[in-house]
């Protein structure tokens, strides 16, 4: 029953996304590319939110992925996009595995704090070691090559879009499988009752550790894709503001569903673009006010609005059928 309900929207979403380059102008395509790239990073944050854990430092992985690509391009000139498609997640997962065992011991506000501290360490390294990273000037990424072919400038936007779209599809499927695995169910249970998980014979620290590695890989992938779609990376990618933004997108979309996160990411980029277009001085304020209203009146995010609409229509439909 549940499967049937999700298969139709999934089908239409996929078709819409694949035909987007024909349907929308170029500048919207750019926003979509960026939104999809960030969406992958937000998935990692949303995973932890399901477990009731808040990370204020997931931009660490974004920065790790982006600067892995940036440094290799700057110092060695490796531009192969498919290479980074594997290297980014690997790098994120490696960093997560290094610190994950420590981080898995923390809960609540301490979990947020230690994540923040780790991300700020990377931020200060990127900012201050000018000779290596270019400091605040950042690194220019340039045009990536795909399987050895460097695309022409006109085609680049489309190719990049499909590249990011397919990566996002893979990441979504992986997250879906993760959530459907026993570990994923335990992760959801973490929010309700940690002690009962331990009683049922599963180690909570192990759950958090593995989730951390997985979300680190997602973050690394997102970092690589963000760096390709923007074309320029700066240390701000790992700053506290970026982490808060990821968290914000997750809550905007609603953490109940992977689709919610997707719509949250797209809505966020569009709100930002339009707010920036109509009032460049106060786009943060627009965003802040929307978030305040959402948190106070619709804490489930956009997805909850969608679900309540669907439920309303369905009940009306049933009534029509019966009557």
């Amino acid at each position, binding site marked *: 029953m549940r499967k049937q309900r999700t298969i139709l929207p999934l089908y239409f979403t996929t078709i819409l996304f694949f035909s987007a380059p024909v349907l929308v102008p170029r500048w919207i395509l750019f926003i979509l590319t960026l939104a999809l790239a960030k969406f992958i990073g937000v998935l990692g944050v949303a995973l932890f*939110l399901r477990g*009731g854990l*808040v990370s*204020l430092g997931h931009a660490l992985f974004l920065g790790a992925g982006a600067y892995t690509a940036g440094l290799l391009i700057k110092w060695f000139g490796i531009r192969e996009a498919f290479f980074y498609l594997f290297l980014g997640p690997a790098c994120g997962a490696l960093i997560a595995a290094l610190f994950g065992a*420590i981080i898995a*011991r*923390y*809960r*609540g*506000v*301490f979990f*947020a*704090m*230690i994540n*923040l*501290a*780790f991300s*700020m*360490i990377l*931020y*200060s*390294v990127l*900012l*201050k*070691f000018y000779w290596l990273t270019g400091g605040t000037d950042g690194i220019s990424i340039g045009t990536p090559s795909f399987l050895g072919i460097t695309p022409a400038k006109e085609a680049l936007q489309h190719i990049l879009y499909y590249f990011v779209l397919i990566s996002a599809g893979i990441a979504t499927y992986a997250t879906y499988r993760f959530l459907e695995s026993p570990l994923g169910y335990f992760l959801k249970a973490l929010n309700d009752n*940690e*002690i009962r998980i*331990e009683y049922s014979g599963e180690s*909570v620290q192990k759950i958090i550790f593995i989730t951390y590695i997985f979300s680190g890989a997602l973050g690394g992938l997102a970092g690589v894709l963000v760096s390709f779609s923007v074309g320029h990376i700066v240390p701000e990618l790992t*700053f*506290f*503001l970026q982490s*808060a933004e990821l*968290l*914000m997108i*997750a*809550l905007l979309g609603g953490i109940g569903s992977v689709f919610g996160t997707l719509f949250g990411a797209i809505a966020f980029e569009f709100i930002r673009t339009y707010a920036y277009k109509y009032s460049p*001085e*106060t*786009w*943060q*304020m627009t*965003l*802040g*006010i929307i*978030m*305040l209203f959402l*948190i*106070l009146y619709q*804490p489930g995010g956009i997805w909850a609005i969608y679900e309540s609409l669907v439920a309303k229509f369905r009940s009306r439909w049933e009534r029509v059928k019966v009557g």
Partner: protein
Amino acid sequence: MNFAIIIFADGVIYAANLFLLSVGMTMVYGVLRILNISHGAIFALGSYMATSLALKVLAQGYSPYITYPALILGALIVGLTTGPIIERLFLRRIYGRPVAIQLILTFSILLVLDDLMKMIWGTNPIFVSEPCTLLGEVSVGGIPYLSYNLLLVGISLFFGALLFWIVNKTRLGKLIISVISDSEISSAMGINVNRIYLIAFTIGALCASLGGALIAPTTASVPGTALNVVSLSFAVIAIGGMGSIEGAALGALIVGLSRALCIHLFPELELLSIYLIMVIILFIRPQGLLGKVELRRI
């Protein structure tokens, strides 16, 4: 030897700044159990308001000594308005909700206030130097220091002592401690818990705006202050122990001294050292140096 004195003096001055900018956050966390990200915006708002009032005073041709009360007045205006408004309108609705909701709510308030400041004061830095230059310089161990900086050290000591006195020696403090220990029992005993929350948050907001106003003459008020203040305060209060006023003082001192040491010896490690210490402290003592151990769910 002389070098050590320089590092020590710089460190203490920076620590005084850090204490002023983070003590409000630890106060709010201690009572309300909410990590108040909007703290940084209140700090920046206080610094903008105080600076612009002081500039108005100078523009009217009054004696530059009037700038001191103008700074304090600016801080009081900001603290006494933003504090109650934020607590009554927003925070009251999210007590006991998930941490993510609390963080993003206070972060949204920061975004709104940050742009409000840009709308009022523009994006160019504003700066009033009179309170700072008026006092002249003092020589400590042969090195000249701005007297205002030494005054800040005194003020932050006084400030810490005052807060400590309020929490530990007055009736209000006893009520606050009782609410911290158990808000349900407190309200059963007839304490108006909501009012204590309101008072505690307003004290926190006042600390933030006063800190902003007092630090303003030594640096300019610029957009982006709010976020830097937040990430620094996080480090200071996590090191000292979240919710502990003495902890904020100790954390400020540690961060201040280590930063001074790094600036003089390894300038590249300036920012890194702060967060490295934060990670090490969180690793050894997750509750911070002077924080109380919280009961864990396992």
